[in-house]
């Protein structure tokens, strides 16, 4: 067990694994993305209340989920690198931040586009929108802090503290629609209850969630690989790889 963790923590091993994995994950991403879009935009029936404009859910919900998920990944790897000083978690946190910020931005933009026909306005100051906006600024603050240090080890650990403080925002975003009754509609899918959505609409949504998740992993692996090369530019295996 410990041997495996140690092995996985070594940048070279991670690099080799990610080269082999990322192609397959990218294929899964492409298939589920095409399937999800076709199912969502063509096959699924129009909503009885919202008409065709509900279809933006297939971008909005996965993006919003991923914005929270990526933040949790950064916070978790930040905690790991604070406690055990593992190099690879530094790299994962660092490589995830811009992707997470993009997902947050996408969630906000699609939400605004959805809000115009449904609520009659692009933006309202309700709890979920505000906390999602705060999340975007947390991401931007994290990225700014990362780029302010020249020593990447210190940058990663300083960023970890910042992210762990900001993690308090995550449950607020997640439960905001249940705690405060606001303009934002309630959750469509909750894991324990029966989903409040028909199967023909649900399956494309789940496919899109899979597509977003695999997209995140693919881009994360690509970004992490280049970060590793930058981190380890002194070691012999990087030299060998670059010369080859």
């Amino acid at each position: 067990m410990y041997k495996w963790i140690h092995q996985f923590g070594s940048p070279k091993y991670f690099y080799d694994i990610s080269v082999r994995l990322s192609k397959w994950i990218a294929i899964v991403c492409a298939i589920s993305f095409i399937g999800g879009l076709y199912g969502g935009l063509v096959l699924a029936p129009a909503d009885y209340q919202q008409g065709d404009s509900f279809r933006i859910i297939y971008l909005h919900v996965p993006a919003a989920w991923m914005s929270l998920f990526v933040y949790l990944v950064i916070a978790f790897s930040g905690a790991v690198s604070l406690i055990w000083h593992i190099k690879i978690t530094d790299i994962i946190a660092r490589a995830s931040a811009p992707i997470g910020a993009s997902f947050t931005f996408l969630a906000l933009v699609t939400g605004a586009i959805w809000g115009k026909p449904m609520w009659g306005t692009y933006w309202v100051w309700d709890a979920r929108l505000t906390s999602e906006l705060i999340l975007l600024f947390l991401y931007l603050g994290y990225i700014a802090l990362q780029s302010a240090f020249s020593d990447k080890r210190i940058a990663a650990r300083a960023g970890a503290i910042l992210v762990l403080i900001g993690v308090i925002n995550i449950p607020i975003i997640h439960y905001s629609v249940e705690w405060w009754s606001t303009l934002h509609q309630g959750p469509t899918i909750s894991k324990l209850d029966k989903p409040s959505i028909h199967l023909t609409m649900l399956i494309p949504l789940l496919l899109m969630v899979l597509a977003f998740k695999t997209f995140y992993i693919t881009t994360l692996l690509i970004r992490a690989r280049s970060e590793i090369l930058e981190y380890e530019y002194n070691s012999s295996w990087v030299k060998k790889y670059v010369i080859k």
Partner: protein
Amino acid sequence: MLEYINIFYVIFKRDLTLTFREKTDFINSLAFFIIIVLLFPLTFGSKSELLNTIIPGIIWISALLATCLSLETIFRSDFEDGSIEQLVLNRYPLILLVSAKILAHWITFGIPIIVISLTLGVILSLSNEIMMALFITLILGTPILSLLGSVMAVLTMGLHGSMLLSILILPLSMPVLIFSTIAIQNASLGLPIVAETYFLAGILILAITLAPIAAASALRIRLS
């Protein structure tokens, strides 16, 4: 135990003395606060109903901005002359020493802000209920800003520019701002403000328990 109280007091007194000997930073941040608040009546005209509704929020935003400015100084001189390394290297718990510095910051910055805000409230003729709500939210909120901000100040100390510090502090202090302004709005409508007060008090207790730990470990990371 007595030794710990003693060292806490020594650091606390040292920071107070430093602040009052070198008054420019201290006076500048308070002057900045007053100027921002007074800019708004100038631009919006002096209609008192409008001011009554927006001035408490403006006082809060100005306090937040002035905090960002003043927090930059909390660790700066120590970092520049190297005395911060002595804090980390000595045998006393770092959490205690950091807490003393944060308390000193709140005494020299938070309390003047509260006093000035109430004075400005009187000058701008706010109603009694709003003054009360403003006082309660400031007395619970400014220590949260000092605590949270000290962690960010450690993370950014020695890095160029105070812009980064503001970018880190402002999003994290939004919950405090939101609860405070909701409380003040409720007070102006004659509604109870108990719920928001409890929320702020809860955040304050969380910050008191966790922020010194975070600041201490951030300090160790920065000096590693």
